[in-house]
């Protein structure tokens, strides 16, 4: 049977509480290349994401600005804030890789040390794994990211 860690407050560590209390990049962008929203009808949680890309000639597009807005518990809010904090400057491919890595982390796949260092302060969310019903809270902003990246991909494939 799953049981919680000895310290019941482990979930509410400094990084999570900091990002919950002072979410980063919450203001919406005046202009965005892509927007995505995910909603969990069972608990009413919502995550909205906007990305603005830079298109420097000869380089693959990279994420210049991000807005992540979440409604719901501390975990979804912290996850959205940490996501936004970690996306800037990444190319679209790198963003997709990070998203996969984060999913692997939340699903308990063994990760090599280099992957863990790649995740940086996102690693603070690993504790959520010990609270299985809360994993979907942490993942919701990332589902929005994946949806946004898919939209970009379709547009790219359509030659836009």
């Amino acid at each position, binding site marked *: 049977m799953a*049981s*919680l860690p000895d310290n*019941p407050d482990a979930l509410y560590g400094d990084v999570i509480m900091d990002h919950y209390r002072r979410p980063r990049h919450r203001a919406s962008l005046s202009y965005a290349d892509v927007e995505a929203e995910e909603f969990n009808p069972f*608990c009413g949680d919502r995550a909205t994401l906007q990305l603005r890309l830079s298109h420097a000639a000869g380089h693959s597009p990279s994420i210049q600005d991000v807005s992540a807005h979440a*409604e*719901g518990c501390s975990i979804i809010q912290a996850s959205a804030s940490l996501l936004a904090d970690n996306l800037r400057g990444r190319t679209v491919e790198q963003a997709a890789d990070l998203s996969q890595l984060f999913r692997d982390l939340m699903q308990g796949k063994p990760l090599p040390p280099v992957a863990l260092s790649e995740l940086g302060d996102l690693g603070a969310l690993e504790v959520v794994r010990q609270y299985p019903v809360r994993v979907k809270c942490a993942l919701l902003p990332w589902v929005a990211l994946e949806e946004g990246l898919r939209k970009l991909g379709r547009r790219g494939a359509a030659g836009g």
Partner: protein
Amino acid sequence: MTAATVNAPASFSGPLTNDDVERIRRDFPVLDQLINGKPLVYLDNAATTQKPRPVIDAISNYYLHNNSNVHRGVHTLSQRATDDYEAGREAIRRFINAPDSSEIIYVRGTTEGLNLVASSYGRKFFRAGDEVIITGMEHHSNIVPWQILGKEIGIRLRVIPFNDQGELLMDEYESMLNERTRLVSVVHQSNALGTINPVSSIVELAHARGIPVMVDAAQSIPHLPIDVQAMGADFLTFSGHKMYGPTGIGVLWGRADLLNDMPPYQSGGEMIRSVTYEETIYSVIPHKFEAGTPDIAGAIGLGAAVEYLEAIGMDRIAAYEQALMRYGAERLAATEGVRLIGTAENRGGILSFYMESAHAHDIGTILDAEGIAVRTGHHCAQPVMARYEIPATVRASLSFYNTTEEIDTLIKGIDRVIEVFG
């Protein structure tokens, strides 16, 4: 009854004492365990109640000794299964004081009871432009079936509003009743607010205009004595699993004259008197509405649950839970940052609350770490959340097996929430 192993119910006199409750708690094996190293404090009884030993024994006794299909065979096992299945029906009839056991229809639960009436009664008797009245505090299961019917045949849903305490505005209700009203379908006790609605007055006003009334008793039947004849309702439905019985079984009670006029809801075996390829003659009630092999073990378990509740006494249960709820409401009201949602004068054992500083899920997780089980979310009553402009509440819902010590543990858990979230 053919059960050999079912315990004789304990007897009680006078109000429930702490000793009585200790004795009762021993009937519920699930309560005796540690959750995250702490004794389980089960305060999610409005979602589903725990099962006492006599219910568990009745179900296992059926499978161990009597398992057979009902109303089908001449052999001994089939006779025993049929007797026990029908004994459950009679126990339920007695419990709600229905005039006749043929009016007790086994369904899967409240949701199916409401859908049965919407599908069968609604499709037959409602026309475009007709109106159905519900309250603003319905569970989704008493909203959506009418909406679906509304789309199909063009009926209009009217909603009785309620005040900030969670009490229906009866004047508004009265002014909604008109010659287009075909049915009033109301929740007896709100699962989100705890409000106990004045169903007898609701019935009186509707009947004065010849309008039938359906009552969703999912949350009231485990906590209040219910007498359908005194209440005057025309249909009443409830779920076994919220009244200490098994999941998958519930009851729709309806007045025989109404049920007789209604077409079957599903078709197949059991509900048929004769079938040829030209014509089918339906059975009489209740079998007309019980197509297919029913949940036999569930019905037997529900019968045992009813007997268990009768042995304690519904008046005694209501009085004990009322005192426990008042104690909990006082303690919560005295806790800084906690806002009680649902403060109707007449309400049952539901403590629904909201904290500005912490989301309901975070509160739920911290309480779980303390061994406390509560429900967090919108409780399938999103219009109620919208009425108070909040996304979700934490709901502690009480049973006669809960104690004031458990309320104290809840308050300590909330103190932990305040430590973490401020």
